[in-house]
């Protein structure tokens, strides 16, 4: 059952990723990306990490992709020539097959070799919020802080580059 679900989620994720890239309309691409994220959440759930799975839905599929869609819709950039033209269906395999082949090859060969490192039984409480919190604020505290600073920089940068001094009509 788990193996089946894994392959199902994996296939859904690859499909989502593929459609994200292939689709010509940015909005439809984004919707497929959401699909891929939800499939990824499924894989996390199968890995006994329910917290991460829900986080994946909440943060990526929920918040971040909403912002993506929001920006795409609001900007509505000009439709480029290449965007209007559809890729010839005959070209699809040419684009899709090489990466897929590598993916499948790597996947199966890794699967063949077994995953010795991961067959150890999971400790009790694995993947619970408490566990995640202890890792995040314990062992990986430095990484956690590094992310927070990097995100702070991203915010400052976005403000510095993107801000526009504009008088609002009611001010």
């Amino acid at each position, binding site marked *: *059952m788990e193996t089946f679900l894994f392959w199902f989620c994996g296939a859904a994720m690859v499909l989502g990723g593929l459609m994200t890239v292939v689709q010509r*309309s940015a*909005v*439809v691409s984004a*919707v497929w990306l*959401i699909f891929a994220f939800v499939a990824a959440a499924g894989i996390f759930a199968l890995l006994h990490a*329910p*917290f991460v799975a*829900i*986080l994946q*839905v*909440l943060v990526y*599929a*929920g*918040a971040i*992709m*909403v*912002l993506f*869609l*929001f920006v795409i*819709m*609001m900007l509505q950039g000009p439709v480029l020539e290449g965007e209007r033209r559809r890729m010839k269906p005959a070209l699809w395999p040419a684009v899709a097959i090489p990466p897929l082949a590598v993916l499948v090859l790597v996947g199966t060969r890794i699967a063949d070799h077994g995953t010795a490192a991961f067959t150890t039984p999971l400790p009790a409480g694995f993947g*619970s*919020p408490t566990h995640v919190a202890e890792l995040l604020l314990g062992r990986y505290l430095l990484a956690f802080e590094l992310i927070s600073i990097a995100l702070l920089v991203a915010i400052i940068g976005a403000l510095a580059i993107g801000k526009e001094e504009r008088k*609002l009509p*009611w001010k």
Partner: protein
Amino acid sequence: MEAMYAFFMDKAGMGQAGAHVTVAAIMATLMFIVMALCALVFTWMERKVAAFLQSRWGPMRTGRWQGWAQAVADMLKILGKEDIIPAEADKALFIFAPLLVLLGSLLAWAAIPWAPGFVAADLDLGLFYIFAVSSMVIIGILMAGWASNNKWALYGAARGAAQMVSYEIPLALAAIPVVMYTGSLNTQDIVIAQQGGIWNWFIFRNPFLFVSFFLYFVASIAETNRGPFDMPETESELVAGYHTEYTGMRFAFFFLSEYANLFLVSMIAVLLFLGGWWAPIPGLDFLPAALTFVIKGVLMVFLNMWVRWTLPRVRVDQLMHLCWKVMIPAALICTVGAGLWMMASGAAG
């Protein structure tokens, strides 16, 4: 729930997987029926509450008593309407959007603990799960607005998304003190922790939780896109917002989901702060748990409607200001304050 599993496994002779699937199907159907009922009851209730607050009668004719059948008639009318898909719409997304909105609400409903042991999906991360899947609603709304290819719809969707994404933060932050007290994200555990009369409800546990409740309430109004935060569907400027182009069944989905979400946030408020299925005073113990829960939920819905029909609509910038500069800091202060209070009162382990 346990009894249901036992019934299907032993009496009906199904395997474990079979029992799970059957119970899930039954619960899903049940939820859907309750959701539909909600929409019916609440449309009628909304009109009556609005009328009451505006000193008029509201629907009085359909069905004898207080025009109760008006909601049914409306629903039949909506379902009988022609299903129109605009020629310039993005068809796939246009069709998919209402489903996604409904799916988001329905999934979130699954983790509501109606009574001890009676919850469709008893998840350890229940509360977290509710917040996560209800974010699907936002995506559905955005898709609807985009796919309609209509500027009112797009503006409505953009406003809705901005508003809901922003208010999700104070909403979740306001719930954190409760989770700290309970030490669990399981919705049942949260309710169980409030056993023992009204003074054990989390809203009265400490002043910070009291403030948290109101933060949650305000954020929940914004989350459901209702007045005074109903910019996504302001009829005076945006026709009907993101569902302008929708008719018939698809419109009904949005409609259904709106009232389902209204009840959902009210029930979450009840389970987080108002003691879930526990009766406020010992004398009311005789009521069934689920009934107590639903009554409290309906009272919260009434409060919501009261606010909607009393306060004027806020402006978009006021809305954002309120969220980012008032409510989020306040919610953070409440979180820290509640933590300190717990330490001081020895409640922290």
